[in-house]
């Protein structure tokens, strides 16, 4: 293994590969900030370029793009509440309120530090435990995944919408319903398409996230422009604030980062789980760990609430390389694109990769860490400039947000129907937000809908239609008991309030 690490270090520290990491991080950050272009698109755009390189150089470039794009997505989440990718949705819960309070610089700095720390810790985990972790990831079966997804949805409903648990659960169901539109993945039978060809492929994630977050946020700001209370009062889009963190803030982050890194990495290792579940679970977990005073700040600009998902999504990015490199199973959509690129290089990832191509295996792992360092060096000095977007007057910023949203979906489909659908969803979302129906549970449910159905299908088919799969395996049972305790706690809390 040590020999492999040395080979990896030699490859990663070659001038050419260092340049590639830098270019990748920079390009990824810019592309990730653009609406509708997440890491998956960013990597896909790089594939034709990488074919001229050696496999390790190509993979190093793509790893840099991956991390850069995730950070870029966080930036648009924090500044304009427009998460370009599912993994940064949880970042906006506290990042955007911080920006509204004139602490955009600080929020971006926390995101950069947390991403760096999460990525670093995960890279160390990856270095030590990659081969053995692949065996652990294989221990998870469909019922466990199904349980894990319900746990994620319940946790988000319970924690992201304080006092509105039932409203959040309705949003979860609505998100799952939206995800069910389109052809069934296994049988190709059309569902809820009403013979409209535009709905045959389902509704895209970018459409729903842009409609429910960026567009409806922009409409809400205009809608409440004369409201002297609540949201309208909080919107002070002219202050950037300092990027320096004081001792108390650093102390808060130091506690959050290790636990979120560990959780993020473990979730990232599970094939199919990825950074979205990791960031939402980390957000929920963090809320449970902090004291009551800090708990009240969640959703209103909590440092812990921002650091936790940012750490976890980066740690999960590193974790998702474990099943890719050791088993040949992509842990996320993005690593699936990378798998395609690897196969294009004539490399078959799997348990024998680090024996047959050690330079690729280890150099990618080493480059991840170098990528983290470069991302931090590159982005910290740029934060004041990036954050200046908030200084744009509202009369310019709102139309620009609407333009970015429409462009995001137009780039994906070149279709008027999708634009109308997005506007329709945005109008509904604006009304729902007005009455405190939370959007994060809807988004998470929409993202997980397909996977959830897939795992339920497998579980029910294996157990011959019996729901006993929920308690047959100890792991599933533990997950289900956790869900029951979260729901039970919500009921108990509402009963206590009544009494």
């Amino acid at each position, binding site marked *: 293994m040590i020999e492999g690490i040395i080979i990896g270090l030699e490859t990663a520290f070659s001038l050419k590969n260092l340049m590639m990491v830098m270019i990748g991080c920079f390009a990824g950050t810019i592309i990730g900030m653009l609406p509708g272009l997440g890491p998956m698109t960013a990597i896909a755009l790089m594939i034709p370029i990488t074919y001229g390189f050696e496999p390790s150089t190509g993979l190093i470039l793509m790893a840099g793009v991956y991390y850069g794009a995730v950070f870029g997505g966080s930036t648009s989440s924090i500044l304009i509440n427009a998460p370009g990718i599912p993994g940064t949705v949880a970042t906006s819960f506290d990042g955007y309120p911080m920006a509204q309070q004139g602490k955009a610089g600080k929020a971006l700095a926390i995101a950069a530090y947390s991403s760096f720390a999460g990525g670093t810790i995960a890279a160390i985990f990856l270095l030590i435990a990659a081969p053995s972790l692949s065996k652990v990831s294989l221990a998870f079966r469909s019922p466990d995944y199904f349980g894990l997804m319900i746990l994620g949805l319940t946790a988000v409903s319970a924690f992201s919408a304080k006092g509105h648990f039932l409203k959040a659960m309705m949003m979860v169901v609505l998100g799952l319903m939206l995800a069910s539109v389109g052809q069934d993945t296994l049988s190709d039978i059309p*569902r809820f398409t009403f013979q409209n060809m535009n709905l045959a492929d389902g509704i895209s994630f970018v459409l729903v996230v842009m409609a429910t977050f960026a567009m409806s946020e922009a409409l809400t700001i205009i809608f409440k422009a004369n409201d002297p209370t609540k949201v309208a009062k909080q919107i002070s889009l002219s202050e950037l604030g300092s990027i320096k963190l004081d001792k108390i803030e650093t102390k808060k982050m130091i506690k959050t980062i290790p636990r979120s890194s560990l959780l993020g990495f473990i979730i990232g290792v599970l094939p199919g789980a990825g950074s979205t579940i990791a960031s939402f679970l980390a957000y929920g977990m963090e809320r449970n760990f902090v004291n009551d005073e800090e708990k009240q700040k969640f959703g209103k600009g909590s440092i812990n609430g921002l650091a936790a998902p940012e750490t976890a999504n980066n740690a999960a990015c590193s974790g998702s390389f474990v099943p890719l490199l050791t088993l040949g199973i992509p842990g996320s959509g993005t690593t699936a694109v990378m798998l395609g690129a690897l196969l294009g290089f004539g490399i078959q990832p799997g348990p024998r990769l680090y024996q047959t191509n050690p330079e690729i295996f280890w150099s990618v792992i080493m480059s991840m860490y170098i990528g983290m360092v470069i991302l931090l060096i590159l982005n910290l000095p740029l934060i004041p400039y990036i954050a200046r977007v908030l200084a744009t007057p509202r009369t310019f910023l*709102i139309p620009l947000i609407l333009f970015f949203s429409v462009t995001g979906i137009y780039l994906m489909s070149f279709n008027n129907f999708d634009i109308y659908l997005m506007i329709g969803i945005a109008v509904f979302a604006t009304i729902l937000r007005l*009455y*405190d129906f939370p959007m994060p549970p809807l988004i998470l449910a929409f993202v997980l809908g397909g996977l959830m159905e897939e795992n339920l299908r497998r579980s029910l088919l294996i157990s011959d*239609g019996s729901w006993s799969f929920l308690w047959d395996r100890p792991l599933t049972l533990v997950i289900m008991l956790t869900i029951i305790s979260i729901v039970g706690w919500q009921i108990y809390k509402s009963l206590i309030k009544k009494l």
Partner: protein
Amino acid sequence: MKITPSKIISLLFFVFSGFYLYTAHQIQVFSFDENAAFNAKTFPIYLGYAGILFSALYIILPETKPSNVNLKVLEYKKTIILVILMVLYGLTILRAGYFLSTSIFLVLSYIVLGERKWIWIFILSFPFVAMFMYLLHGLLNIYLRDPFLQYIGIMG
């Protein structure tokens, strides 16, 4: 039971879930799949029941934290005009092309929101869109259909 806007929204969601459930039952599955433990309509049927359950619970149970919204202070006019502008933007984006429709949408939106700095209105519309198009079309190689720019010979 006090009828609040949140309860009315929940009632609408209850009706929607009922319709969803009805439509889920209408999904045509393959005959060999009809009695399978899981088919294309199984998950939607569960979702329909879940929607009915949660919305019914919200309607029946007393509200723990009612939402207070002052409808009189909301800015309806500008919001509705912006939505109409977006619909028109969607309508023209393919016909007039990305450059023209986006630039005009931006100019009109700035004006609707009360902006009167004409130089900035111009800079943040036509030149801004041109630069954005260059980034997407020229640098990232993302195709943007634009009949207007093709007609005047700027775009190939």
